């Protein structure tokens, strides 16, 4: 399993998808934040984090994701998550991320969900 986070970005019709692979910790969270804020600067207001390649996250990574969510709320953008492991999904619910960011089972559903709810 990859341990240092790797990111891939796919820009498509107003929605940017960030694919993560590896540990979302302090370093990993910072990388995601950099990528997300860069996409906001490019004008993307709908971001999807596809966590297919991530099996582990810690509280520092979660706090950074919360900051990204707050930033998105501030600019009236949207952030959604998809392809979470059951453990990570449960963690997101307990930590309150699911209150402010939608969670989808897969990428197709997530992209259409983001587009249908501008």
């Amino acid at each position, binding site marked *: 399993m990859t*341990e240092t986070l790797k990111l891939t970005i796919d820009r498509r019709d107003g929605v940017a998808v960030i694919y993560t692979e590896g*540990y979302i*910790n*302090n370093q990993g969270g910072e990388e995601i934040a950099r990528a997300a804020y860069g996409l906001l600067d490019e004008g993307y207001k709908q971001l999807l984090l596809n966590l297919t390649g991530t*099996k*582990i*996250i*810690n*509280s*520092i990574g979660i*706090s950074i994701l*919360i900051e990204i969510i*707050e930033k998105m709320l*501030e600019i009236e953008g949207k952030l959604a998550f998809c392809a979470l492991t059951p*453990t990570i999904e*449960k*963690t997101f619910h*307990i*930590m*309150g991320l699911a209150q402010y960011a939608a969670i989808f089972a897969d990428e197709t559903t997530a992209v259409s969900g983001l587009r249908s709810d501008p």
Partner: protein
Amino acid sequence: MSSGAPAGEELRAELERLAREVLPGGRRALERLLPVFARAVGGGGAVYLRSEHGLRREIEAGPGTFPEHIEESPASSLAFDGGILAWSPPRDPSTLTSEATALALAVAAAAREVQLALHIRRQDFEVKTRGVQLEALYDVGLAIASTLDFERLCEEILMRAVSLLDARRGALYLARGEALGLERAFGGDAAPLLELGDSEVQALLEGEPTPNCCALPGAFHLLGVPILLEGEAKGVLVVGDKESRRGVGPFRPEDRRTLELLANQAAIALENVDLHRQALEKERLEREVELASQIQRQILPERAPELAGYELVGWNRPARHIGGDYYDFFRVAGGHETDGRIALVVGDVSGKGVPAALLVATLHSALRLLSEREPLSAAMIERLNRHILEWSSANKFITLFIAELDPASGELEFVNAGHNPALLLRADGSVEQLGATGLPLGLLPAARFGVERSRLACGDLLCLYSDGITEAASPEGEELGTAQLGELLAARSGLALPELVEAIDRAVVDLAAGRAQGDDQTLLLLRRRA
């Protein structure tokens, strides 16, 4: 909503909502007020909020250098509950203009709001993080009942430990003999083996600082706990370098308790998987043994051939599922089962179980092939001996009694390769022993074997057997013995052969008096009626 006082959970949620609403407004107020204040003091300004790591810069405006973290309040600052407002160029607070003082108080009021909101959020975050930890401990407990995959369980335990304790690295070691072997590592290298007696490992488990410990080389801060089952260390769970937004640091005292709880759950889960693995392995071995047993049962003859003027019976009871005894009767080269020469065989392979069964199969096929091509002779048994020697493992050998009977004349040719003497009960009640004519098969490549002859007259009984019969013993150690077997045959000579077999079996069982059968038991009886 309930009409009474809000429950703790509701209150916490309400506070969290309030903080979430207040925070953006407070920050916007700071963003607007601070630049105005900076202009009023003719320089720059910064708001610092107090955290567990000292004073952290929240926002700055205008020219001037304001470090991200400071330990103490500078002279040019105004303290408020939860932080300070600093400015440059340096000026005593008492010299600020009334406008600047009013602005400073407004900035401080907004900063207090932000600080309060952040404090509520931090508290909320910590409560939720604790909730995640409790859920994780519960989940690992559930895995005890649901995960029987060893690899998956090890990964789950290590991942949970690393993420719950905000560690950057981790390793799981499990007992391998006297040492602990590395089962899984995360975030970097780990030593392949740990010695529990090692002073560095002891220090780690006792909570002493052990930077760069062999368990996680290169990690500055380590936390390790034993995985204990009934007081015995079954492994070690170790994590390294606790993360914060500022980098890595030492673990907190409460982290040890969390890791210990996780290790307790892990111990039970790992034991459960191990027991399941042992059960599967036992089941697999039993299936193999049963299969080998079936094969061996197929090797032994289903019934004795019809032989005019003779009675013939064979009987075998293995001590375990698969035995090392073997018996057979078959038509030899040029013979016919009803009137031609018949081979009678009893063998005993050293050992029991699958290896013995394989050697029995080797003996069976070799003997059958050789007997199809040539009659019994010393040369034939010598070839058989070399074949057994070549295809058996070291220290394996076979004792074998093989005889060829000419039914018409009662002539008997036999070779006894280190086997128990066959007993020939004459019609007059006397017993002859047909002793060894050579060494057991498979011992020496150049072994020689003699072929001897005898003759069965009307009423004579030939008894071939394995040592499981004559060495059957009472609880006091008294064996049945060859002589007693001969006496038993003589005393029961009037019985038909199946009943005679039953009588011998009963005598053996009675002698053992309930003790488990120690060796395979085989009998082959041939009586000339006419």
